[in-house]
């Protein structure tokens, strides 16, 4: 939000809540009437700093600058004693306190209230004035005197702000708090003002101004250094303009190298482990421990899907060997002719190079390997004789394939 927009917002708020502000102004205490109806309005006025919440009293009261504006506009004849001179303001406050106490002693209730309200106004205005001076200095500091571009201007403003702070601090020193304390000790309302509100504000101002001095000195140091650097640049430039061949002396050649020229060259980063050095053992152990702590990277596993769709596969054609075909032909012929076939006789149909025993075994294997449905069409008989010595041993010399 621009400053223009913010200003318009404040002025609109003043107009919007004019009734509430005037009630507070007329009440002589400047305290805003806080009810459930006016709560939002008071909040807005507080937010815009048109009103201030006094922690001690707890009420929201009009900012003294607003009251001053109304005083000037309405030409109100108030007992307004605060001005730029804090010492005079303090004097006025003490005078009012004395008047208040006299009215109280004389039981002049109306006068007592009038003096009290005037006193409260003046103390609050004095406090506001002190706080505003402090805020003004901090506003300058926070903006880094940015309204001025030139360094020399900034330095001048900084020095001016410093002297302002020092002057304000000296003025604060002039406020005799013990006198105030004494003046307020006999009355509760005065105690509130002189024992709490005013001392607390003065202390706050002192702290803020102390911080401001520190900050201003720091800024002034930086600004002076920048100014010195600026002069340095111009002096060097002038020097080179006049002495084109100027070259500084070799400061490294001396026995003592100036600190400013001690700038380490870039060091290539790398190294190797001296594994035979026992003093390095601890470091290596730590490294190894660290390595073990690292979890191995997960392997990248990929799965290739295998199709299980049988319908897509072409029917397999198993090519039978000549030997197998010859063996099968024997079985086919047996069924075809419907008569027994001797294994030795059928050997003539075996492929060339096949031994007769292999042939006979092949016939037996084919018979044994048949499923039950096929085997029931055949039976296998063995021709031979029992051994004469070992009569349990039957020595087959031929096999006969018979159709059932």
């Amino acid at each position, binding site marked *: 939000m621009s400053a223009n927009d913010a200003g318009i917002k404040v002025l609109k708020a003043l107009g919007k809540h004019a009734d509430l502000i005037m009630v507070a102004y007329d009440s002589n205490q400047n305290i805003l009437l806080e009810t459930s109806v006016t709560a939002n309005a008071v909040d807005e006025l507080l937010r815009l700093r048109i009103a201030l919440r006094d922690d001690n009293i707890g009420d929201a009261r009009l900012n003294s600058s607003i009251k001053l504006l109304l005083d000037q506009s309405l030409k109100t004849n108030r007992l307004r004693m605060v001005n730029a001179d804090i010492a005079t303001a303090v004097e006025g406050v003490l005078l009012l306190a004395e008047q208040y106490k006299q009215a109280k002693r004389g039981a002049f209730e109306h006068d007592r209230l009038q003096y009290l309200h005037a006193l409260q106004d003046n103390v609050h205005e004095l406090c506001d004035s002190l706080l505003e001076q402090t805020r003004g200095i901090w506003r300058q500091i926070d903006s880094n005197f940015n309204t001025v571009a030139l360094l020399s201007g900034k330095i001048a403003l900084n020095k001016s702000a410093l002297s302002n702070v020092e002057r304000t601090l000296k003025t604060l020193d002039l406020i005799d708090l013990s006198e105030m304390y004494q003046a307020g000790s006999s009355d509760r309302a005065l105690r509130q003002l002189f024992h709490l509100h005013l001392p607390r504000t003065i202390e706050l101002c002192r702290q803020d101004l102390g911080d401001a001095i520190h900050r201003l000195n720091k800024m002034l140091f930086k600004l002076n250094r920048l100014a010195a650097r600026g002069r340095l640049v*111009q002096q060097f430039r002038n020097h080179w303009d006049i002495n084109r061949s100027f070259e500084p002396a070799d400061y490294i050649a001396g026995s003592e190298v100036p600190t400013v020229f001690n700038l*380490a*060259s870039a060091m290539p980063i790398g190294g190797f482990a001296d594994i035979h050095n026992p003093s390095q053992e601890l470091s290596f152990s730590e490294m190894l421990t660290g390595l073990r702590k690292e979890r191995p990277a997960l392997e990248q596993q990929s799965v290739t899907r295998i199709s299980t769709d049988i319908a897509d596969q072409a029917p397999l054609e198993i090519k039978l060997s000549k030997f197998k075909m010859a063996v099968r032909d024997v079985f086919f012929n047996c069924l075809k002719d419907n008569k027994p076939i001797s294994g030795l006789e059928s050997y003539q149909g075996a492929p060339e190079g096949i031994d007769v025993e292999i042939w006979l075994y092949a016939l037996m294997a084919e018979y044994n390997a048949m499923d039950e449905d096929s085997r029931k069409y055949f039976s296998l008989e063995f021709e031979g004789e029992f051994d004469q010595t070992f009569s349990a041993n039957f020595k087959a010399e031929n096999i006969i394939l018979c159709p059932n």
Partner: protein
Amino acid sequence: MTQINQSHEFSRIIESLLAQNFICQYADPPAFEYLSKETYYRHVDEFLQKIGRCLRQTDDQGAYYCAYLYIDSQSTRKQLSQQFRQTINILEPMVRWLSLCMSATQRDAPISAGEVIRQGEILSALENAPALVDDLALITRSGVFATKKDRPNDQLSHVLMCLCEQGYLLRSGPSSSIYTATGKWSYLFEVLEFIHTHEEIGVDDEPSGEHQEALSL
């Protein structure tokens, strides 16, 4: 900051310092913040001391850099000598550049860490001041900013690029014309201040007419 992050930051800072970088709050804010803490500063310094180096800060405490712990060997002295030669060689063009910037921006303060430099601002000043164009041409004629380019805009871009490469400026973006000055300028001014003190620069020097013209812009 976790232990792993601390360890990572520590090694990153060590590598940066050993690569002769200046660590400032503009060039490397996390590292600068790390070193601003006393404990971490000590850790880094102790590590560097084990390899014959140490951690230093510029006088204005705006930048950290790496220095030699002892200058007792011939090789160290030789490296320092080379380093010194490089620094001395860039002084004149740097001073002329600083002076040009001050004249172009009509300010009485030279570039300092954190300052924003706008190429457009300098260029528009060059368009209205032939003396500054001559100054720029002189800067780019030889030395660290030497270039064969003859247009002021190109020469200016070249100088700014060189300053970025040497760690004096940071470019806001790859194609940006806005630059931020780093803490390395503080070191340069320390060198200038030292030479100024020891060589009595500026005692008898009178500003030249050319210079006056440039300043009056």
